[in-house]
């Protein structure tokens, strides 16, 4: 009966495995070992997410008590369909990105630095998973900081010294955001005297609105908006994505902001309840204004960027806006659309950044103007960038279309049909920067000596790229699975 016991402890294993693997990397101090264990742990974590999904599907929920202490006193981990949906997304992304991370060193350090890099990677993943599984508000903060701190370290590992500045700026913004969240949690504790999210939501509902609550909600929204990279709080994001090592960009683009969205959903819909945060407080209007600005302005800024990676950072700001629209609709369909977009955007983004990473590693530059006609020598990467670009625009047959379609339908159903205008306009503006890249990659005369940039593509590069491209292709053409999971996740949130 031993294996059954293991199955009972899956929620904690989801966090503990990478948390324990991280110091192991440093202690053993062997680069090959660190690489191996990072991929192995990533695979294991994806497996654990799958097993957890199997346990809660279709509408169950697991409550795991840390150390056996009962819920309001001890720390409780909760796994339901929403948790599982996010876990599957981030662990899939992590698996793909970690495979890519062992490919070729685009980092600037020696062997010891390399082990520390993988240790930070594992810690980051542990923190992200922890934020998702925990049902304790303070624990959310702790895991948030674990993932954030290791993210700062990962970003600072880029080749360009500007990566240090990017990491520092992110650290300042991230720390301010996290402290806002901490303050919000403190105020909630002041009001309700508990930290368990389920418990909090019940007590808050009993006590009704108060000034403390308003303050808690406001601080929380601002804090998490920084973490999500919503439009006016997005300042850290383009630099961080641009100067981080290519592998880290791939990981971050598919996980960090997505987990922040999860926390936003949990708090806004569950803890504060939809009626309060969207009904009594005008949070939805404020966030919608930010989101519309984001989806229209970000593509235009992307059009003017001169760096390929930085340019592909802006769609993250734009696409998070679509998710926010779904969240702000306040309906089950809206949340389902948001979750679907979280997944779809994650896979597209990690795919694009891996392709961009391969391209940059070959050509040695990420200046867009130097990349003329590169598509003719680096076919795979270029076609994947094209495919990802079509997905970002939302051309039918791609994942981007599926989630935008669902989102527009949710908006129309909720009565806000006018929201489909900025959504469509946003798609249209994204055409401009995607097509600028396509024109340059295919039709601009070559600037580099292309024959010198030729080098065979390694397994660690094409395997994750092709794998994620196939996943993206599949979910663009047959979205029944992702739709079902998103719908179940949304209903698990609405059902409490």
């Amino acid at each position: 009966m031993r294996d059954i016991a293991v199955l009972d402890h899956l929620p904690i294993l989801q966090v503990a495995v990478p948390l324990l693997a991280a110091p192991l990397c440093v202690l053993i101090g062997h680069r090959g070992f660190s690489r191996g264990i990072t991929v192995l742990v990533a695979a294991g974590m994806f497996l654990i997410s799958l097993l957890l999904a199997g346990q809660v599907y279709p509408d169950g929920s697991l409550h795991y008590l840390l150390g056996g202490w009962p819920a309001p006193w001890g720390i409780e981990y909760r796994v339901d369909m929403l948790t599982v949906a996010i876990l599957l997304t981030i662990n899939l992304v992590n698996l793909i990105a970690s495979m890519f991370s062992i490919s070729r060193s685009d980092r600037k350090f020696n062997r010891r630095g390399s082990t520390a890099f993988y240790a930070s990677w594992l810690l980051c993943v542990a923190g992200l998973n922890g934020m998702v599984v925990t049902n304790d508000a303070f624990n959310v903060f702790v895991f948030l900081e674990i993932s954030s701190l290791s993210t700062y370290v990962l970003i600072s590992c880029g080749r360009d010294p500007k990566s240090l500045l990017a990491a520092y700026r992110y650290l300042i913004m991230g720390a301010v955001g996290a402290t806002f969240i901490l303050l919000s949690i403190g105020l909630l504790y002041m009001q309700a005297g508990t930290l368990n999210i389920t418990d909090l939501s019940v007590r808050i509902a009993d006590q009704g609105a108060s000034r403390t609550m308003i303050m808690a909600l406001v601080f929380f929204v601002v804090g998490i908006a920084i973490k999500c990279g919503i439009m006016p709080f997005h300042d850290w994001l383009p630099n961080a994505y641009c100067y981080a090592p290519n592998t880290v960009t791939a990981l971050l683009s598919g996980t960090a902001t997505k987990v922040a969205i999860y926390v936003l959903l949990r708090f806004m819909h569950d803890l504060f309840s939809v009626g309060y945060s969207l009904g009594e407080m005008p949070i939805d209007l404020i966030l919608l204004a930010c989101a519309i600005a984001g989806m229209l302005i970000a593509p235009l800024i992307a059009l003017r960027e001169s760096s390929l990676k930085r340019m592909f950072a802006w769609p993250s700001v734009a696409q998070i806006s679509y998710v926010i629209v779904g969240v702000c609709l306040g309906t089950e369909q809206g949340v389902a659309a948001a979750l679907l977009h979280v997944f779809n955007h994650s896979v597209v983004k990690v795919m694009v950044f891996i392709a961009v990473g391969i391209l940059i590693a070959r050509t040695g530059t990420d200046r867009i103007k130097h990349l003329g006609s590169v598509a003719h020598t680096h076919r795979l990467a270029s076609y994947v960038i094209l495919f990802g670009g079509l997905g970002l625009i939302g051309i039918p047959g791609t994942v981007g279309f599926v989630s935008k379609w669902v989102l527009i339908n949710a908006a129309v159903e909720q009565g806000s049909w006018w929201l489909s205008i900025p959504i469509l306009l946003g798609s249209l503006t994204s055409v401009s920067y995607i097509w600028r890249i396509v024109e340059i990659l295919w039709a601009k005369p070559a600037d580099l000596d292309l024959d010198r940039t030729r080098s065979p593509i390694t397994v660690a590069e094409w395997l994750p790229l092709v794998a994620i491209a196939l996943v993206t292709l599949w979910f663009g053409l047959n979205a029944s699975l992702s739709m079902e999971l998103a719908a179940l996740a949304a209903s698990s949130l609405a059902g409490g």
Partner: protein
Amino acid sequence: MADAVPGLFNYWVAVALFTAGLLIVLDSRNMVKKLVGLNVFQSAVFLLFITLGKIEGGRAPILAEGVEPYSNPLPHVLILTAIVVGVATTAVGLALVSRIRDAYGTVHEDEIHDKPHIEPEIMP
């Protein structure tokens, strides 16, 4: 209203530290000072948390006869964790600043921006 200031003394201190810290973070161009500001800013939140647990005349929460009323120990524990997190943040921040100094020779943001932007050369 008369005792709004003395009675809620702890909150006023927290608010003052909070604002001052945030101002330093936003305004200072010196990277080390920014981190100092961040610490002040975080301390405000820590202070707020700790004062939540304190009850007037409350004693240390020891499970024994006669220890009644006692202060809530939970905020202290939480803040202990938060302080550790804060220390870690500061450490990472200072490490980054020291690396920035190695790379740019300064910790002042304006001076870094003044340096001409050198585009990375095309590598073979």
